[in-house]
């Protein structure tokens, strides 16, 4: 068992455990913490997959910004017993949902293990002009990523900025208390 597999297994276990934690904790704050751990473990995955820049971005954006917002809202709104005080009106869905999820995971794993084998020379097949190539394989090549982002994918990148502006405006509008409401 090589160090690579060892690292993968450890990180995968951490990721799955923290993922289960997200949906299993009663308290939303622990869910959020669990999700943070999950995101960090995914960042580790990305490191293993030579994606150093994306790993840093994952930590910076997801862990550093998005989850802080989550934690903010959760600490403001959440109480420990919120979900226990009222009874579940569609309790059958609890069972059905869990079963459906497990079936989904099992079916997907089954397909991946049995049928969707990527050919060993997939990398060779991929090395046509369809994809932006990493000039120096094996290192997290930020420069190649930058070239891909600002040349091949410039338009999606710009569209993203438009989406962000829209989101900012939407958040400002939603977050503003209307004058009438603030009086009562």
């Amino acid at each position, binding site marked *: 068992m090589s160090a*690579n*597999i060892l690292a993968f297994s450890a990180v*995968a276990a951490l990721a*799955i455990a923290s*993922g289960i934690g*997200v*949906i299993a904790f009663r308290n*939303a704050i622990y*869910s959020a913490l669990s*999700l943070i751990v999950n*995101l960090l473990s995914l960042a580790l*995955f*990305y490191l293993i*997959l030579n*994606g150093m820049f*994306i790993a840093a*971005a*994952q930590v910076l*954006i997801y862990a550093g910004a*998005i989850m802080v*917002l*989550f934690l903010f809202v959760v600490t403001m*709104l*959440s109480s420990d017993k*919120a*979900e226990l005080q*009222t009874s*579940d009106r569609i309790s059958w*869905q609890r069972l*059905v*949902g869990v079963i459906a*999820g497990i079936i*989904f*995971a099992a079916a*997907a*794993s089954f397909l*991946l*293990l049995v049928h*969707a084998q*990527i050919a060993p020379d*997939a990398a060779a097949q*991929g090395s046509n002009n369809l*994809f*932006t*190539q*990493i000039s120096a*394989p094996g290192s997290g090549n930020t420069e190649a*990523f930058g070239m891909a*982002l600002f040349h091949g*994918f410039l338009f*999606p*990148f710009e569209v*993203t900025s438009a*989406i*962000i502006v*829209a*989101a900012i405006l939407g*958040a400002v509008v*939603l*977050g503003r208390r209307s004058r009438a409401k603030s009086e009562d």
Partner: protein
Amino acid sequence: MAVSLNSYLIVSAILFSIGVIGVLVRRNPLVIFMSIELMLNAVNLTFMAFANALGSVDGWVFVFISLTVAAAEVVVGLAIIVAIFRTRKEIDIDEMNTLKG
């Protein structure tokens, strides 16, 4: 021996399914939202795995864009949840069922 692509994909599928279960089972909209984030990240993992397997950074671009869009989505989503909480003083998603037939 390198870890095969399929291993990453299976981990991703499991994480995705966990997210699905979370959406179906939990009643706290914040946790549901987190489950959605989990699903997004599972998909990001497949992108990264494929990018590594194919020796291309195109997958990174998708992950990067999905990161930024997720940030935008979270901002708006949390704003909506806070707005709902402000008016209804509760955050049980089952209470928001006025749109029923």
